[in-house]
């Protein structure tokens, strides 16, 4: 019995622009929002969209990611017919051991996984975007248009457009041209790196692309241009709402701050039915001491707060000593801020101890990253 749709999450990249934060974990496993890891967002979106087979393609520091994804239990993907499968680069019979060479190559190397489910459609996702999206609606649009490929796009400002891959479309939403980071953008529809392919087309193009030694084996650079050239039916699907590629320390910080200001990403599920699932941490309750002051912040279970916290996001088991000041900062799990220490506009990596005499980034112009892995 074939599946209608299978999702493949590209989670192999290191994300070097996140510097020390990805020294020991893959980017999709980076902490976000006081409680989550980035990959919780595409995985929860899959679960909430009713997609029940999800492949997670890994290569860089995949152990934590692999055990984190486990069998998909955290997202409810552990029924008899549902699954989150870790797909590492590996040695294959008749091929040998090969690493993933590009986004398209990674999917190509897992054609036998896809064939096993014989899906009509394949959803390609990135493991490092923060957003809530109903892929079922995108699939409905794909089916309605009879498309070979549907690309989710976001209407960005003209200024930003030259940082993105831009889809130039006709009035009916069909794509006639794709420009990677155009200097003079003709449109403002930026690709979100979210693709729904009709699988038999995808399969054909992946096999063709794999034969081409000059190809970068990349969806944006190779597969989409090939399909446009062949006059395949490519459509843009416009998404509106919060979406963020947290590619840099600055953008990761900003995305955390966005949560404090009620941007469109609603973790509190006011619109119901779209919870972001994550791991359950075994921690004591959040304890707020007698001398504490907390404003305009997210604080999660396991924290002990005795000092002043403002405009900040505190992850699991963070400890803030008396008289300490934490302003506009993101404190990853297990950070210990000793009495009287001060931190401004910083991301503090997992487990770091801030000494009582430390004053971090008082100027607070740029975001400062504090890590033991620096």
């Amino acid at each position: 019995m074939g599946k209608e749709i299978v999702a493949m999450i590209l989670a192999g990249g290191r994300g070097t622009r996140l510097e020390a934060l990805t020294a020991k974990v893959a980017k999709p496993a980076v902490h976000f929002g006081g409680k989550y890891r980035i990959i919780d967002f595409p995985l929860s979106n899959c679960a909430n969209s009713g997609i029940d087979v999800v492949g997670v393609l890994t290569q860089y520091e995949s152990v934590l990611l692999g055990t984190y994804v486990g069998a998909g239990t955290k997202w409810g993907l552990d029924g008899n017919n549902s699954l989150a499968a870790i797909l590492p680069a590996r040695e294959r019979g008749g091929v040998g051991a090969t690493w993933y060479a590009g986004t398209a190559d990674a999917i190509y190397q897992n054609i036998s996984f896809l064939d096993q489910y014989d899906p009509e459609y394949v959803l390609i996702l990135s493991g490092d975007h923060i957003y809530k999206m109903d892929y079922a609606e995108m699939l409905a649009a794909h089916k309605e248009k009879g498309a070979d490929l549907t690309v989710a796009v976001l209407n960005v400002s003209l200024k930003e457009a030259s940082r993105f891959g831009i889809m130039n479309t006709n009035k009916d939403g069909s794509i006639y041209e794709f420009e990677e980071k155009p200097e003079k953008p003709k449109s403002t529809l930026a690709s979100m790196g979210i693709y729904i392919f009709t699988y038999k087309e995808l399969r054909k193009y992946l096999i063709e692309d794999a034969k081409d030694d000059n190809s970068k084996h990349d969806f944006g650079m190779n597969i989409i241009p090939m399909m446009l050239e062949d006059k395949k039916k490519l459509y843009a699907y416009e998404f509106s709402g919060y979406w963020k590629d947290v590619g840099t320390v600055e953008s990761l910080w900003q995305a955390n701050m966005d949560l404090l200001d009620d941007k469109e990403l609603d973790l509190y599920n006011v619109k119901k039915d779209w919870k972001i699932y994550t791991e359950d941490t075994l921690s004591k309750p959040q304890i707020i001491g007698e001398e504490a002051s907390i404003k305009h912040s997210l604080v999660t279970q396991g924290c002990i707060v005795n000092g002043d916290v403002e405009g900040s996001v505190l992850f699991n088991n963070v400890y803030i000593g008396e008289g300490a000041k934490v302003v506009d900062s993101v404190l990853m799990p297990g950070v210990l801020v000793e009495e009287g220490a001060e931190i401004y506009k910083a991301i503090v990596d997992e487990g770091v101890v801030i000494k009582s005499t430390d004053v971090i980034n008082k100027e607070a112009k740029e975001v400062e990253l504090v890590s033991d892995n620096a």
Partner: protein
Amino acid sequence: MAKVVGYINLHSDVSYKGLTEKRPVASVSFLGRYGIIDFVLSNMSNSNVDTVGILIKEKPRSLFKHLGNGNSWNFNSKSGGVSLLYNEKYANSSMYNHDINNIVENIAFLEKSKADYVVIAPAHIITTMNYADVVDAHAKSGAEITMVYQKIDNADETFVGSDFLRLKGKQVMEIKNNKGNRKERNISLETYVINKKTLLKLISYAQKISSFFNLRDTLAYLCDERKIMAYEYKGFARCIDSYEAYYKVSMEFLDMDVSTQVFKSTWPIFTNTNDTPPTKYLKNAIVKKSFVANGAIIDGEVDGCILSRNVTIGKNAVVKNCIILNGSKVCAGAHLENVVIDKDARVEKKTELIGEGEPLYVKEGDVV
């Protein structure tokens, strides 16, 4: 440790007024994040007792939900696990609805176990007891029955109505009811280690004496003719045997000296996950000396409180010395002191509620 099977004994007369009207004591919310039963279950798990039967007295529904498949308590789902033992037959006849009848009705659980020893513990006495230590001492003593007690010096205030033990050396001579007329007592923590074979004999013996006899009665009846060993437990113990005790013990935890005795990294307290986001503090939040569970949104003043999951405190509301359970909402400008608010209730704007003496109780789903 020798092979041990556990029973969590929910057969008791303890109730917490409105809080236990629709749910058993075991699943009453505690410290914002837990159910009362999580502590004894975690003790079982941390003591490597991986097969646990829960002797359910009544209102099984919320327990099914809370316990799920037992994964949250770290029981290997193949070799052990949690079994819900419910005595449907006697559910509505209070005289017969006791622990021994429940064990008998569900005797297959005990019979198929390959354990040598049985640990029996209640849910409403909160401890961090390592049952492995008790079993070791029990095994070494050669006794067939061991009772765990704690020496306390405020028996006139706590554990009133519980049993105390009269000891001779390490042997239990008599089991009597603590009427609160003395400060110093060796209080029974209602935690027993019994050889499996002895327990099987005991229950058939108890049924012969009287079909009203529960386990405690049987032990009290037998202690002059059988050797029952006493094991002194010196760790943390609190008896939550009334609505007042529930409130008092909860508030006690806000003292870090108390809570650090229980929350230790070597002795995790397990509970089930609820997929709630972190607590959100808004610009007008002033929070002190409180436990806050995830999912709360706070824009008012909170002092000396325990807030459960998904509680909302509106702008400039003032909440002092309160326990607020899951999903309840305190609207802007309300003023609460000394109140326990059950789940999904709503305190309207600018309402003032102040409990005098005993804390006020607001029912589940009420709008006040």
